């Protein structure tokens, strides 16, 4: 009798980064719930204060983050097209003490350009968000202005810090990618793409969180 076996693909990236991602999502989830329930208690204040936010800046930032995420996904996909190293050659990422075997491939250049585009989008996000913060601080708004701005500033700044951390990871990955450090592994090998995939997964998490944050804070009044 023939049996139909569904082969599930492995998780893209390191297990540790996914546990970290889930922990981050949990923290953001608690933050969102706290915002939503506090909004319920101060409806008029939140409605009035939300009207003072720049929806266009939030929209531009969303466009930058989703574009950045798409670029990072394209970078990972480009590296996947590189042929694996032969079994005898040790993959670059599995060696800690010895000199890693790195074989550069033209697709590494393609992938590093995509990743660089993702980094530029992330920097654009920081620029726009920084402009928003400067405008608010210039208008005398701070954490102690009222409950809405306490939430707005702390929630968006918490996310802002995650964007910075994501960018630091992407820059580190980009530097290694330019050297040809990542490529697909042969079956049974530890994936030499783990670093790239882990950095990408973290970046997409930052994007996913903003996908909820943007309508919650800027649009849902």
């Amino acid at each position, binding site marked *: 009798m023939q049996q139909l076996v569904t082969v599930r693909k*492995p998780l893209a990236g390191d297990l540790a980064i996914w546990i970290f991602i889930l922990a981050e999502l949990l923290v953001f989830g608690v933050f969102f719930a706290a915002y939503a329930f506090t909004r319920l208690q101060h409806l008029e204040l939140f409605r009035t204060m939300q009207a003072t936010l720049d929806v266009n800046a939030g929209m531009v930032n969303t466009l930058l983050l989703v574009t950045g995420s*798409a670029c990072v996904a394209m970078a990972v996909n480009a590296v996947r097209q590189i042929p694996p190293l032969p079994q005898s050659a040790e993959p670059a990422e599995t060696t800690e003490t010895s000199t890693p075997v790195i074989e550069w491939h033209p697709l590494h250049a393609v992938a590093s350009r995509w990743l660089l585009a993702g980094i530029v989008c992330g920097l654009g996000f920081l620029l726009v968000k920084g402009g928003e913060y400067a405008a608010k601080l210039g208008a005398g708004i701070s954490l102690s202005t009222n409950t809405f701005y306490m939430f707005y500033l702390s929630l968006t700044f918490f996310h802002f810090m995650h964007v910075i951390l994501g960018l630091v990871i992407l820059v580190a990955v980009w530097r290694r990618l330019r050297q040809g450090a990542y490529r697909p592994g042969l079956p049974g090998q530890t994936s030499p793409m783990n670093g790239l995939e882990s950095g990408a997964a973290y970046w997409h998490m930052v994007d996913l969180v903003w996908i909820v944050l943007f309508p919650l804070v800027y*649009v849902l009044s």
Partner: protein
Amino acid sequence: MNSTDHSRSIIAVWLFLMAATLLMAHAAAWRPELGSLGFAGLLGAVCWLKGERIADIFMELRGVAGPWRWLVLGWLALVLLVIAYTYLRGLNLPTL
């Protein structure tokens, strides 16, 4: 899925996310026609679709071994439900 197909999926998802973001940012203009419930429903549905696309295509969680996809989508669903609940409570609907 081969690399070319995956590239196409990424581009399709990116276009969808861009369009959905523009829709979301301008949804407030249609609020009088949609009503508060319709407005919230539109935002919630678009937000779910955007998050689901990011998880499945960008994070590559579709078809992955283990509970990862359901953990991420479960988080998204739970967060959206909590937001929807508090929003509807704020509307003072008789059923809530």
